[in-house]
C-alpha cells in the first residue's frame, strides 16, 4: 500500500515522501514524534497520519490482528489454510495416502522415474482428475498440460476421461437422493476440452511459455493444475554455459513456485533419471543436477520393484518417507491388486 494513496493534503504528502515514507508499513511502524521530526510536520499532523495509516492497513491486511508487515500471517491462520487446501487425487488410494490425500495445491511437486514407469500416465490422470466436480470431492478446475516430448496421446486421455466419468456415474448411484438431483453433466469430450495443451519444441519456447503462464492463468482463473512433461528434455542438450543453464532453471523454478502460490494451483513437474557417480558406484538420480533438487517442495520417485511399480516420497516438508505401489491400467492409475503390497513406512 503506497503512502500517496492516503487522503492527505498534497504538501504533507510531499513532505512524507521526500522524507522517505513511501509505504504504509514504514509509517505504521514509527511513532508520531519520530514521524513529525523526520517529515518536518507538527505532532498533531503526524498523529492524524498514523491514524489514517492504521485504518487503511487494517482494512487491507490479511488478518485483523494488525500485523506490522503487510502480508505476514501467523502460523495458526496458515494451519487453517493448509488444512482446507484441496488436493488432487491420483485415482490410486495407496498413492493418495502417502501423499497426504493427493497432490497438494500451492506446491510444486516433482515426479521422476525411468522411461515407461508411468510419469505421463500420472500427468494425464491428474489433468483429468482436477476436473472432478466439487460434489464428488474434486476441485472442478481445468488443467494446463505442457508437453515437451510429444508423449501426450489424445486417445489415451480420452480413455482415462471415459473411465473417470464412468466411475463418477457409478458413484452417483450411492449418493444420497438429495444430491442425485445434480445429474452428472460432464462428458469425456468436455474433459478433453478443459485441458489446455501446449506443445513446446525447444528450451526457448519453454522459457517463453513459462513467462507467459501468469497472464494466461489470470485470464483462465479456473486452472488448478499445471503439468510439465517433462521439465528436463530440452535442457539436456548441449548448453555451452552450465552456469547459464543453472540460472535459467532456477528462474523457471521460482516462476513455478510463484504461480503455485499466487493462483493456489498445483504444479507437477515430471523429470527423467540419469546415473550419477556417488560414493564409488553409479546410482540413479533425477536429472538436472543438485541445484535443481532444491527447486521443488515435494519430490516423488517412481521405480520398479520386481514386477510392481512403486512411488516413493523422497522429499517433503510435511510427509513422512513412504512408498506405495500402483498400477497403470486401461482406465488409468489404480491401486495394485497384489496381495503382498502394503504401504511401507521408512
Amino acid at each position, binding site marked *: 500500500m503506497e503512502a500517496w494513496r492516503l487522503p492527505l493534503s498534497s504538501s504533507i504528502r510531499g513532505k512524507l515522501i521526500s522524507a522517505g515514507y513511501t509505504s504504509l508499513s514504514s509509517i505504521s511502524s514509527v511513532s508520531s514524534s519520530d514521524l513529525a521530526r523526520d517529515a518536518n510536520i507538527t505532532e498533531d499532523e503526524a498523529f492524524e497520519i498514523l491514524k489514517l495509516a492504521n485504518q487503511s492497513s487494517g482494512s487491507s491486511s490479511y488478518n485483523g490482528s494488525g500485523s506490522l508487515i503487510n502480508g505476514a500471517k501467523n502460523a495458526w491462520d496458515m494451519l487453517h489454510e493448509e488444512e482446507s487446501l484441496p488436493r488432487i487425487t491420483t485415482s490410486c488410494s495407496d498413492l493418495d495416502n502417502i501423499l497426504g490425500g493427493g497432490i497438494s495445491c500451492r506446491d510444486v511437486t516433482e515426479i521422476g522415474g*525411468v522411461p515407461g514407469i508411468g510419469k505421463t500416465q500420472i500427468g494425464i490422470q491428474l489433468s483429468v482428475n482436477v476436473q472432478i466436480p466439487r460434489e464428488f470431492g474434486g476441485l472442478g478446475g481445468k488443467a494446463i498440460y505442457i508437453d515437451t516430448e510429444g508423449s501426450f496421446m489424445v486417445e489415451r486421455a480420452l480413455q482415462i476421461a471415459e473411465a473417470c466419468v464412468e466411475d463418477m456415474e457409478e458413484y452417483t448411484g450411492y449418493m444420497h437422493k438429495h444430491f442425485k438431483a445434480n445429474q452428472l453433466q460432464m462428458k469425456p469430450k468436455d474433459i478433453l476440452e478443459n485441458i489446455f495443451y501446449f*506443445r513446446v519444441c525447444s528450451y526457448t519456447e519453454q522459457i517463453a511459455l513459462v513467462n507467459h503462464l501468469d497472464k494466461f492463468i489470470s485470464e483462465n482463473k479456473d486452472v488448478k493444475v499445471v503439468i510439465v512433461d517433462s521439465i528436463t528434455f530440452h535442457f539436456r542438450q548441449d548448453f555451452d554455459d552450465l552456469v547459464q543453464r543453472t540460472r535459467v532453471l532456477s528462474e523457471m523454478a521460482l516462476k513455478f513456485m510463484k504461480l503455485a502460490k499466487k493462483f493456489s494451483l498445483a504444479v507437477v513437474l515430471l523429470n527423467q533419471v540419469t546415473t550419477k557417480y556417488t560414493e564409488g558406484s553409479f546410482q540413479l538420480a533425477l536429472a538436472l543436477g543438485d541445484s535443481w533438487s532444491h527447486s521443488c517442495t515435494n519430490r516423488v520417485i517412481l521405480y520398479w520393484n520386481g514386477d510392481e511399480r512403486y512411488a516413493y516420497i523422497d522429499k517433503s516438508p510435511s510427509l513422512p518417507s513412504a512408498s506405495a505401489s500402483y498400477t497403470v491400467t486401461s482406465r488409468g492409475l489404480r491401486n495394485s491388486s497384489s496381495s503382498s503390497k502394503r504401504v511401507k513406512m521408512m
Partner: protein
Amino acid sequence: MKPETLLRRPQTNRKLTTGCKILDGCLRGGIPCYSLTEIVAESGCGKTQLCLQLSLCAQLPISLGGLNGSSLYLHSEFPFPFRRLHQLSRSFHQSNPSIYANDNDNPCDHVFVQNVHSVDHLFDIMPRIDGFIKNSGNRLPLKLIVLDSVAALFRSEFDNTPSDLKKRSSMFFKLSGKLKQLANKFGLAVVITNQVTDLVETSDGLSGLRIGNLRFLCSSGRRVVPALGLAWSNCVNSRFFISRSDETIWKERSENDESGSSYVSRRAQRRFDIVFSPYLPVTSCEFMITREGICGVQA
C-alpha cells in the same frame, strides 16, 4: 514466436499401418505420427524388414491405413538392401492394384534413401530434409522418416571415458529434439532402429536396470539390453522389441511315412513386444518373415 501459438488443440494422431493386421492390432492401428518410435532388436531379427515394409506402406492412401506420402530411409549401416526393397515393392504393387494405375508405377519411386555415416553428417543434412519436405512439388509429401540404425552412428565415435559419454548423451537429446521438432512441424512418423548389447552383470547391478514392461529382454537365448543406455531411452516416445528364438520342432514319424524316421526341424520364432509406450497396453505378438514381408501369426 508467440507463446500463445503454442496452445494446441490435441488431435488423435494418424497411424501408419505395418502392413499386417495382427501387428496393427497390437499397435492399435500402427506406428503413430508426431512421435518417435524405436525398434530394438538383435541383428537378423527383422527390424530392417519391418522398416522397408513401413516405407512402402506409407504410400498407401489414408483409407487403407497409409499416410499418402513418401518416405525417407536414412541408413547408417552398409549395405542398403536394395534387392530386398525391390522384391517387397513388386509384391506390394501386386497386392495393391487399385493404387498403381499402370505397371510402370514403381512404389520404389516414393522411397528416398540417404546414407549417413556419422552424427555430424546427420545434423548437416537436417536442414536439407527440412527443405525437401517443404518443396514437395509434384511428388507425394514426405510422411515417414526411418533411421536405421541409430546405434551404428554413435558406437564408433565415442570412447568410454566419462567426458565422451557425457558429450554423447547431449548428442542424443539434440538429435531426438531435432527429429521431434520435424515430426511435430510436419506431422511425420519417425521410426528409429537400435541394436542390442549383451548384458554383463556387474556388482553395482545397474546394468540390469529395468526399463519398461518386460523384466528382461531375451533374444537368441541370451539376455540383452538396448544399446546406447539410459540416456537414449529417455529420448524416444515408444520402444518396441523384436526377438528371435530358435524353436525346435520334433516331428514324429507318421504311420504312412516310408522312411520311418523322426526328424527335428528348427524354426526361428520371432516375437514383437511393446517395451514402453504412452498409450499402448502390454502386448506381445509372434510374426514371420516371408517373401511378401512381415506377417503376424495368430496366437
